[in-house]
């Protein structure tokens, strides 16, 4: 993919895997509780037969999804790369489907760091970059690095093109 330009090199924070798995586990637990309640109600109130089938298929899909949610963070971490130069932000991600983004600094409208409670515990930040019509996120960077990157992008993006 990169014959004439440098491939992006920067990686996410290693703790990304841990945070994502904890997050997914919490979400999974909540989801299975809801699903359990639905199954219970279905059993007690004798809902129509097709509802039972729908619930079973949802349950099967959920199990597959939760198994996947324990594998995917490793793949995401392994394949995520980003880089920021004076003129462009480069993003690369995806194992099965490789995505490469090239965003000119002059087109960036806003950049922000976001930190949820879990990310905060591990001292991580998510950066979100907005252009005129699209938005991108770099998940889980160490806080100092994230703030520095944010300021860096903000400084570069201050320059605007004459239309």
């Amino acid at each position: 993919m990169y014959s004439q330009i440098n491939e992006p090199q920067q990686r996410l924070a290693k703790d990304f895997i841990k945070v994502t798995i904890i997050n997914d586990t919490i979400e999974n637990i909540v989801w299975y509780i809801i699903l359990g309640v639905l199954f219970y109600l279905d059993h007690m109130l004798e809902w129509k037969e097709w509802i039972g089938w729908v619930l079973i298929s949802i349950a099967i899909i959920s199990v597959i999804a939760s198994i996947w949610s324990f594998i995917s963070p490793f793949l995401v971490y392994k394949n995520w790369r980003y880089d920021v130069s004076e003129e462009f932000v480069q993003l690369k991600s995806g194992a099965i489907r490789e995505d490469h983004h090239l965003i000119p600094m002059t087109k960036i409208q806003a950049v922000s760091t976001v930190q949820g409670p879990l990310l905060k515990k591990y001292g991580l930040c998510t950066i979100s970059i907005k252009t005129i019509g699209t938005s991108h996120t770099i998940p889980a960077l160490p806080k100092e690095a994230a703030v520095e990157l944010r300021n860096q992008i903000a400084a570069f993006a201050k320059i605007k093109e004459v239309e």
Partner: protein
Amino acid sequence: MNDIKRYHPLIIVFELWKLVRNSAFFALFLFVLKYNSEAAFVRYGRIAFIVILGFSIVHIFIKWFTHKYKLDDTSFHIYKGIFTKSKQTIPFINVQNVNRHTSLFHRIFKVTSLRLATGMEGSDATIEFTVISPTEADNIERRMCVPILDEAKTTQPSEGEKGVSPSGVQPEMQHADRTAPHRMIHFKPTKKDVLKASFTSLSFLILIPLLGSLYTKVDEIFNVEKEAEGLLSTILSSWWLVTNVVIGLIVISVSIGIIRTFLKYGEYEISSDTNRIYIKKGVVDSTSFSISKQKVQAIEITQSTMKRMLGLVEVKLISAGGTNDEEDKQEINTLYPFLPVTRAYKLISEILPSYEVTEEMTRLPQKSLWVRMLKPSWFWLISTGALYYFKPKLLGWEHTWWVLSIVLFVCVYVSRLFDFFHTRFTLNHNYIQIKTGALTTSLFVSRRDKVIEVKVTRNLLQQRLGLASIETVQQAKPVCRTTINDVPIEMARAFYTWYLGRTNEINVK
């Protein structure tokens, strides 16, 4: 000149007329259809209707007294609000395009309406004058040019991204422009063009559903079917009568089609001066559109199967200030939709000299055909599943479902094949041309400096075969993404490097 102004007083009449039009249905329902009704909802409905109507009328008047606007040398100032006052300032430079619509109402009072679209998000994105005198509209539209002129001039020395016309010639022309804008008319459809257009758009077919619905309506009232049985059999028995009726119907429908097309596309006019492009259309309900040449984000040339057979194309100018409004979806950003191919290319080079359209484009390699053929068609899988489950019977024929499934399968793969053969691309030094589409093809031409982002993706199969999909993002509303699938990886690399080269041609401030 720079005073705070009220909107045109006829706005009151216009708004009242709109109010009457919108409330007519409720009025009819509450006071005529339910005339004798004593039901509670009708009684309270009437009270509510009158109260709301009263408030609306008062609101229209107060709005006229409180809403004002001001123009200065660089921007618009809009004052509005009855209790909460707000003031909005919009620099002229943010206006992406200007739209003027003259409906029958406007024509009667010799006024017009004006919409200035900005590229902003939200409900304040367009500045709208529902009624405005033509002189004031001209005045406003003229101002839109001025700041762009200035800017073009200041950026001229620094080897600009613009290159509106070959530099060196431009400054003098701009000076001339300031005093008397020199407009050049590029295209006006001839009678032949309108005729061709009316056949292409198949608008003469409109008579068929029209007659059908008319027949059922008449039938409901008079029970024609029984009464006419005698008449029908007499008509059918004499072949010359049948031919006459058929010919008569054809003549009527063709002439209706031509009249419709004439009313819509007859008075088309595409013109331009050094800075702006102007498109005018419509005979009774006329609309005009103007856009600064620098604000054209991309050009899209589309061609349906019918148009391909007749050698016609439709050329669209992509602008960042699209309107989300249903009311204004008049496709006015289209240069004439039935342009002969060669004429269209000539027209583009005439009005947008900074764009180049070449007909030399690269085809996709053989292996991308395989990727397309191997990709599962979710549409076909799901519809076959549904067909298998429901097993619908068309005219009592029980094999319908699998025949339909096969037909769908063939359609899907034939369209993929067409898409493969139609897909082409070209990277010119600072242009990209992408052509895609199965039945209706679209050729997308954009300049490198107008592309706001690029993306390259590769799925597992593409990685194995050395292919990639590329995507450009244009500023429009909503954002306009153009994708081309399964190009060779070398092309994707070239595309990435090509985009990196944009830094050399943009001006920053």
